[in-house]
């Protein structure tokens, strides 16, 4: 489903954030990305939806080299990838409902579908009753959950989750993890960067560990360590 070949990313021709990263993620797999702060996890995820382009190497998603894709095809690619951003990236001028609905409007879903699916998804992440709030009227964890809801409301093929439980208490975080697991079981490929030792150890999925831009471990059914 996703394939990185010798990917190197250098910011401003001086910061090497990724060095020669190579790995495959099969369809339906669940992968944890772990590693210290600044080791390149977010950069790796940003490679996979063409938010950044590699200086060397190639990124393949669903059989296509996304760096050779014309710009006009990129929206289509991104619609098939749900993205939970580390800094949420909510639309500050839109309410919770509108933020989540936006992902459906982008793919042209009719109004009645939106009116039915958005509340259902908001219920799953525990935000019922907060539909009409703006992001600045939410707590940190609530904003994070809006971002989660938006990422999978349109049932994407791939879900890229950057630290999706960083601002959640353990109980809520576990709920979200169960949700991601369920989504994964329906066939969605999930790649998740996390610092949450407990969750990684509990789930026992494949773990890719990074250090200063290099993949230092790639282990099936791994732990945080």
């Amino acid at each position, binding site marked *: 489903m996703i394939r990185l070949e010798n990917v190197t990313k250098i910011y401003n021709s001086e910061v090497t954030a990724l060095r020669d990263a190579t790995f495959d993620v099969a369809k339906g797999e669940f992968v944890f990305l772990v590693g210290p702060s600044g080791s390149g996890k977010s950069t790796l995820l940003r490679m996979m*939806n063409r*938010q950044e382009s590699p200086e060397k190497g190639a990124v393949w998603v669903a059989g296509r080299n996304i760096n050779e894709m014309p710009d*006009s095809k990129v*929206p*289509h*690619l*991104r*619609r098939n*990838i749900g*993205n939970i*951003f580390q800094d949420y*990236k*909510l*639309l*500050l*001028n*839109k309410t919770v409902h*509108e933020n989540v609905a*936006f*992902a459906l*409007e*982008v*793919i*042209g*879903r*009719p*109004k009645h579908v939106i009116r039915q699916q958005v509340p259902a998804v908001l219920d799953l992440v525990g935000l019922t009753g907060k539909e009409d709030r703006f992001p600045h009227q939410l707590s940190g964890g609530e904003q994070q959950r809006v971002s989660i809801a*938006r990422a999978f409301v349109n049932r994407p093929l791939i879900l890229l989750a950057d630290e999706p439980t960083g601002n959640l208490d353990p109980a809520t975080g576990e709920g979200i993890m169960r949700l991601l697991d369920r989504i994964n079981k329906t066939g969605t490929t999930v790649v998740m960067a996390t610092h949450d030792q407990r969750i990684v150890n509990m789930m026992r999925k494949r773990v890719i560990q990074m250090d200063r831009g290099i993949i230092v471990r790639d282990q099936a059914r791994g732990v945080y360590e």
Partner: protein
Amino acid sequence: MLSRLAYTFRETGASLRRNITLTVAAILTSAVSLFLVGGTFLVQRGFDNLLSKWAGGVQMIVYVSPTATPDQVTNIKSALESSPTVVDVGKLEYLNFEQSLAEAKRLLAADPTTFRLLNEANLPTEFKVVPKAGQLNVLVQLANGFAEVPKVQKVVLARDQVEQISKLRDFVQTVTVGLSVLLLVGALILIWTTIRTAMFARRREIEVMKLVGATNWFIRIPFMLEGLIQGLIGALMSCGFLLFFNRLWTNGVVKLKGDNGFIALVVSNSFLNLVMLLVVLFGMAAGAIASGVAASRFLDV
């Protein structure tokens, strides 16, 4: 398709309301800019009117009594043509009743009451006389002679009333045309920078939309509609100003009335309407296009 349309309108409406600072700024800027542009067109037209009677080097106008028969008009024409060394016969022009009426209509735009009193029985027709180069002084000496020809009602010389204004003619026209162009460019710069700044304030919003998979046009169209609406409202406000100041101006000029020809400085309502229509169209187009282009600057994610 229908849902796309509904989306666009909802999106635009919400955006206008929620970015009220930016909306107000864009509207005020376009109102001021468009008012300046529209105003210049009106001033320019006023001067044009004032000068058009004396356009093309006309230095003498011979008014013919409305009671003159066609034969008598021919006589006057012959009299004028009898001095081919002084009068430029090729440029001699006769305005019959319809043409004189049309001219009066334009010059009396501010004074429809007077205009309505005009009819075939009281409106003189006119010959416009251009002298040969260097023969102006001789023409002036001949003027009294022409006044004696039967059925000539009045002979008016440019020198008496508007020689100076006529001299200013090309100059004023250059200045007002230049000013219009300048203000048009200024208005465009103002609208553009306002919209650009507003987009700058919203660049993160645009970036997020792109990351969620929106196409460029999906993002751009609501912004363009927003710019169009802001341009429209600004243009309507500027039309309000234009109407108001045109009224002031007209009243001012009408009070000046008397024997002078300044009444011609007033523009007709149909011209005013044309200018307002252009201002509205220009405002909408500038708003939409500027917004679309400004948004594109931040679409490259």
